[in-house]
């Protein structure tokens, strides 16, 4: 808080407030004295605990959680009815607290100043003459303040109750025994074929390239066979053409393998080598040929 805000602290005239204050009229039990009469007992000097020695500054800072808390403290300290706050007295004390904070170079929180202004504002509204002809009972300007104070007090109490609950680390402690043989088994996530196909449908529908492409069932097994032919040719292996066919698969299977090899040749993924006419044909994975990847993809997508 900057230095400029200091003059604003003088929101209330330092001299004692007028005796015929409207709040005194509203609260006959609390006849205004230079300071106050609380529950019939005149208070002629500020409560002793208003003085905060500099040593206690830290305590002071920790003690109050803001302007509502400070106000609540002032009210409770003097056993004042929260619904009938003697504004002059409370405002005066409140501002004295703020002055005190200021004196000890306490960096004033804006919220405290706002509250001082609020108190002054309520007070000024109460000092204004009330319209005589008013039918409806005018709401006490203090009502809103009282409501906020009560609401704040509820949660102050709730925080206290929460703090009283038995809690881990402070009151109770989880009991754990050592497990010598702990074989953690991480189960792998399951997926269903349906999920897989739906994923494919999603990805295809998002992709222009694929949008009008129909995958024929035959093509699928050909593509898988392309994979297995490539695996057979792993590690620069040369495999004799006929060895890549499994007669046990029958005619259909042989056809699929043949189509797969044609497709692989077209995509230049394999090479067929024949050392001499009518000699055995060997198949090996292609090397050192530059084919644009898009070209091979395109041929498939067309």
């Amino acid at each position, binding site marked *: 808080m900057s230095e400029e805000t200091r003059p604003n602290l003088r929101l209330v005239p330092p001299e004692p407030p007028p005796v015929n204050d409207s709040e005194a009229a509203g609260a006959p039990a609390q006849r205004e004295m230079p300071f106050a009469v609380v529950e019939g007992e005149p208070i002629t000097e500020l409560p002793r605990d208003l003085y905060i*020695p500099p*040593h206690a500054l830290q305590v002071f800072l920790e003690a109050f*959680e803001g*302007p509502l808390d400070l106000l609540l403290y002032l009210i409770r*300290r003097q056993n004042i*009815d929260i619904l009938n706050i003697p504004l002059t007295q409370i405002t005066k004390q409140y501002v004295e607290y703020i002055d005190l904070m200021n004196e000890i170079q306490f960096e004033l929180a804006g919220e405290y100043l706002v509250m001082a202004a609020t108190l002054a504002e309520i007070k000024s509204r109460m000092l204004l003459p009330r319209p005589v002809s008013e039918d409806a009972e005018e709401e006490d300007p203090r009502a809103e303040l009282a409501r906020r104070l009560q609401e704040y007090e509820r949660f*102050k109490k709730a925080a206290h109750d929460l703090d009283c609950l038995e809690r881990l680390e402070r009151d*109770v*402690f*989880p009991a754990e025994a050592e497990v010598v043989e702990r074989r953690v088994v991480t189960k792998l996530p399951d997926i269903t074929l349906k999920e897989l196909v739906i994923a494919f449908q999603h990805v295809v529908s998002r992709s222009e390239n694929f949008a009008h492409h129909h995958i024929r069932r035959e093509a699928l097994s050909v593509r898988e066979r392309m994979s297995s032919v490539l695996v057979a040719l792993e590690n620069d292996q040369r495999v004799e053409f006929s060895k890549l066919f499994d007669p046990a698969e029958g005619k259909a299977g042989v056809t699929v393998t043949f189509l797969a090899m044609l497709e692989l040749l077209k995509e230049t993924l394999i090479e067929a080598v024949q050392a001499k006419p009518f000699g055995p044909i060997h198949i090996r994975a292609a090397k050192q040929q530059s084919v644009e990847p898009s070209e091979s993809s395109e041929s498939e997508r067309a």
Partner: protein
Amino acid sequence: MEDTEIKHVLEAALLAATKPLPVDKLVGLFVTKAPDVDKEIVLNALTALANDYEDRGLQVQEVASGFRIQIRSRMAGWLQPLWEERPPRYSRALLETLSLIAYRQPITRSEIEDVRGVAVNPNIIRTMLEREWIRVVGHRDVPGKPEMFGTTKQFLDYFGLRSIDELPALAEINEDGPQVSPQADLIEGLEAVEEDAAASESN
């Protein structure tokens, strides 16, 4: 399967687990080897276990995410030498903010500030998020789309509660004005400090 053995399996499981176990998980322990053991049997066994612990330093506690075995609070004093660090203390500002989130959830920061009358320290929110006591449960549909906070199961677990309903009842607004001052101890503290200060001044 014998009742005693069921109890012993449950005891071992609760002590082996590093977090509370929901009753379904406890029933699941028996599913392959003793499928007769159902939820009711498990709950009865837990009650029996709790009775066994009656006079001991342990207790079976049900919290939001399940059952756990914990050391009773009356043992806390004895165990003090075990801990190298003091248990974390939480400031009144944090506890008030947490209470507001617990009782008024979902609640935005500015709604908290309205009740407390002071700005919410961002560190307080961060601490509670990191402890996973609170989480962002949505955004209020007002300009700026502020985050709304709510409490978590971990919050309930930490404070030994099964559900948010078990929080102490929020004080009624008494139209005549509440009479008890929750600050009594605080004020005593202040007075003590003052006396100390006075004493040191007189030296």
